[in-house]
């Protein structure tokens, strides 16, 4: 009798330990591809620091949300269209993973482009990728949560310039670090990165508009997004991606109004739901 009971305990313990090991080995990973045209003379420093800010921020986010990390930074001479596409294609994604792609580079659109998203410009070889292609490549990976952000202009180019562009056809800001006892912040990171599923796409400006920045300040959308993120993860309520993206326009335009340039209206698509709620 006792022996049978003992065997059951051993069997139960074995199953429990196995489950824990399996859970651990299948922990979700936060994958990120961060691209910044840091060679550019006018905005290279801002674009490079945008990548650095995202790199540091995502490491913090992964730590708080208990995600493994796989972050690829592409800056300087490495910023080439083929390399970026290959890195995205090579990502090995499990269904519970998170993918973040961030592009700090010049952008444009053609007069007859129907999609609202910009084309990303690779200055080294003078070619480009439509953001829609990145969205297609990322969504095909079927990650739990996909975030695609482009801090680029969405201004029109002259028709005459179209033929010369080879378009592919198809200051470091840190995120809020939670102290050991800061459960609220840790839970909020978990809510945003671990308990959310879906797709987020954002770009710095609506069709026809410029995205502004400076080497001193950074790219306005990037710094505003990180600032708004920091505020949101400290809130008790309304912690979701919508409130983060809805809050950035006001922050961007503090700078555009001060410098008397046209207002910048970021655009975003959020199709997410919260799990376990």
């Amino acid at each position, binding site marked *: 009798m006792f022996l049978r009971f003992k065997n059951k305990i051993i069997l139960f313990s074995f199953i429990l330990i196995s489950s824990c090991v399996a859970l651990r080995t299948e922990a979700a990973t936060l994958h990120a591809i961060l691209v910044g045209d840091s060679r550019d003379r006018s905005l290279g420093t801002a674009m490079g620091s945008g990548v650095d800010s995202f790199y540091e921020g995502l490491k913090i986010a992964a730590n708080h949300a208990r995600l493994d990390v796989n972050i690829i930074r592409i800056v300087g001479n490495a910023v080439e269209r083929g390399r970026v596409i290959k890195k995205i294609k090579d990502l090995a994604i499990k269904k519970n993973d998170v993918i973040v792609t961030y592009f700090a580079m*010049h952008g444009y659109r053609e007069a007859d482009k129907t999609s609202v998203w910009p084309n990303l410009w690779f200055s080294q070889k003078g070619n480009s990728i439509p953001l829609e292609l990145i969205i297609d490549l990322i969504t095909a990976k079927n990650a739990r949560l996909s975030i695609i952000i482009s801090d680029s202009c969405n201004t029109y180019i002259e028709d005459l310039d179209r033929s010369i562009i080879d378009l592919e056809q198809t200051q470091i800001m840190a995120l809020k670090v939670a102290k050991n006892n800061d459960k609220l912040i840790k839970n909020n990171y978990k809510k945003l990165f671990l308990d959310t599923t879906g797709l987020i796409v954002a770009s710095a400006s609506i069709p026809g508009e410029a*995205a502004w920045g400076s080497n001193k300040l950074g790219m306005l959308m990037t710094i505003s997004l990180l600032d708004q993120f920091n505020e949101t993860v400290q809130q008790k309520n309304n912690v979701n991606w919508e409130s983060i993206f809805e809050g950035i326009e006001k922050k961007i335009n503090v700078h555009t109004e001060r410098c008397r340039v046209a207002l910048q209206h970021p655009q975003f698509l959020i199709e997410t739901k919260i799990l376990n709620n």
Partner: protein
Amino acid sequence: MFNKIFNSVWTLLFVMCVLFANSMHSQIIDDQNKELKLQTLLGKEAVDVIYQPDSVTVIPVKFSAQSPAYELLSSGNTLSCGMQKELQDLLLDETHYVHELTKSAVFLPSLAFKFIKNNETKALILISLSSNQLKIINGENSLILDYDPAKEIFNSYFQKIKINYQFNQLGS
């Protein structure tokens, strides 16, 4: 009585002189500030070159994927005195530029202005009409500026260039 009037006139004249001198002084200070802002923005060397060239040539250009990222399409035309003066006034006004920010647009030049002094090109200014930006290339240095605050005046000037020099490849 006469003395009183005489004194009043002198007092009035004195006050007017003081006011005039004061306004002249303010004007000088204002001009100096503008000059300083312009030099900070463009660089002193570029300002000097744009200020006193022997001649300015306008040339149609197109973007090139190879360095230096533009290709001159002809030897160009020398600007008339009037057009040259108009260009200098456009370029040398600091209120025509965005300060502190730059846009992340693609720079696709379609026009270039060569500033020539002593038979040498001292500066080349490229114009990207789609992004409302200009690039000043001065020796090894180059600088992109956004002319959004004065884009209507700049664009109407470029339209005149298109008509006067028959540069059909420029956009409308």
